[in-house]
């Protein structure tokens, strides 16, 4: 789904490159943690995937397209298949929860009957069915992040980028958001989550990409936040699907079948499995 080959990025006024020779491959339907100290290049990497920036050298391929070579007027298509969630939620304060989610469909010209049927479904999935008519400032931080995830997911992107989605949330709420992202992942979406939350990474035991000073210093399947033992840098392909580790709220509500054809998360619009 995503291929990075020798990607470097230097900002015009940057003292040192933000990314140096990063190569990695992320398969369709993978869940990847992107870790590293502030300033290590995590956000730059995500911005490259969205074509908010172009790599100085190297190649970034998302869903089979060389991102740097997409024509400007085609960039919106890229962004329709790459959803995004941020630390600061970025909701429109003058619109209700439902209107915030509907906005994402309205501005890409989806027909009204689609918007009317899909928005309540997605709000139900993120557990905000009851709060559709509330305004963002009437919600808790966790609830606002749920709205942001609903907005990112409602267009059924193939990739969801989450840039420190739990950065503003308390530990309990962080776990709830984590399990929500896990559910999005189980629905077949490739998820890349940049985070500083060590306990989440340690609990989930998913693939971890670690950046340090712009270089990729670790690529570990089922890794932890901190490198425990010296690990050779080896690109891992699809990790074995892991069950929810202990200590984390189950990704799916009890009684729900695992993601698949019958899951409410499965995209009804798509024909066939993603990837």
């Amino acid at each position: 789904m995503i291929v990075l080959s020798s990607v470097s990025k230097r900002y015009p006024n940057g003292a040192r490159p933000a990314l140096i020779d990063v190569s990695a491959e992320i398969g369709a339907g993978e869940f990847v943690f992107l870790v590293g100290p502030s300033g290590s290049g995590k956000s730059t990497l995500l911005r490259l995937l969205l074509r908010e920036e172009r790599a100085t050298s190297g190649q970034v391929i998302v869903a089979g397209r060389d991102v740097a070579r997409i024509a400007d007027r085609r960039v919106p298509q890229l962004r329709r298949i790459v959803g995004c969630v941020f630390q600061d939620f970025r909701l429109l304060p003058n619109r209700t929860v439902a209107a915030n989610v509907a906005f994402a469909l309205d501005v890409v010209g989806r027909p009204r009957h689609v918007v009317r049927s899909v928005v309540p479904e997605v709000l139900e999935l993120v557990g905000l069915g009851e709060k559709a008519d509330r305004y963002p400032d009437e919600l808790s931080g966790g609830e606002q992040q749920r709205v942001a995830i609903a907005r990112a997911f409602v267009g059924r992107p193939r990739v969801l980028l989450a840039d420190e989605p739990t950065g503003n949330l308390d530990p309990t709420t962080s776990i709830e958001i984590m399990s929500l992202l896990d559910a999005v992942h189980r629905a077949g979406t490739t998820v890349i989550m940049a985070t500083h939350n060590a306990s989440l990474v340690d609990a989930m035991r998913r693939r971890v990409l670690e950046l340090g000073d712009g270089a990729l210093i670790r690529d570990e399947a089922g890794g932890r936040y901190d490198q425990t033992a010296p690990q050779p840098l080896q690109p891992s392909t699809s990790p074995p699907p892991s069950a929810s580790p202990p200590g984390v709220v189950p990704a799916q509500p009890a009684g729900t079948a695992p993601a698949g054809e019958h899951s409410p998360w499965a995209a009804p619009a798509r024909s066939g499995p993603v990837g």
Partner: protein
Amino acid sequence: MGGAGAQRPGRLMRPGPLASLLWTGLRRNLAMTGAVIVTVTICLAMLGAGLLLRAQVHTIDGFLLDQIEVVVDLSDGITPAERSALEAEMRRDPLIAGVRYETKKQVYERFRRDFRGSPDVVAGVGPEDLPAALRLTLADPRASRDIVVTYTGLDGVEAVRDQRALLDPLYRFLDAFTVGAFTLAAVQALASFALIYTMIRISAHGRRRETAIMKLVGASNGTIRAPFVLESAVAGLVGGLLAAGVLVAAKVFLVDGQFARQTMFPLFGWAPVWESAVVVLAAGMLAAAVMASIALRRHLRV
């Protein structure tokens, strides 16, 4: 990995959500939009006034050109042979459609008829005081100056009078006002552009969250720009409607109410008013939309 599946590119927003974006933008930006409407109205009213003045010039042209003749006054000493030679030459001239000879007596009678309202003038002129004349109707009335040049100074010709020249001051007056109106319209157009430029900047700032999210979820560039361009076009449309109202009011109260009683010249009818109104409306909307698009290139990176 294929294309984006069901999500076709370039699909535009439905009218409903677009109207709601437009409405919030206009409300948020009310004072600025009002200022744009005022300048646009003045600009378009001036443009319309210029168009109506030109229509008036054409109306007078159409009225006079049928009636205007070039009058060749003959000197008293002209011999019949000289006169018939002159007439023959004129009949060969392709610019001249007809030649009619008027004796001194006929000229005097025409003079008495034209000035029957001023007995004092008539009393001061005798039947022998006025010269005999050849009255020429022209194939192309606008070529009168050439005729004047050609026949002035020939033997037996005392003077060549172009009646259209008598109207020069009127034409100069109308032309000056037309130029003035168009100049003011141009100045106001510049002011409108400056205001629209600023309006777009403020609007882009007010909407930056919305546009950021639109970009993020993959709205096309056209969709992101549409509310801004429409906002400006609406201001242009309102300005156009107000200006059209001004033109209609000018026709009713100024032209029909005032000038019609003060001048014997025919005044333009309603057709030029409607034509100008349509021009003003279309120009207002289009120009405002184009100006907004130009301003967007500067203030909205997509």
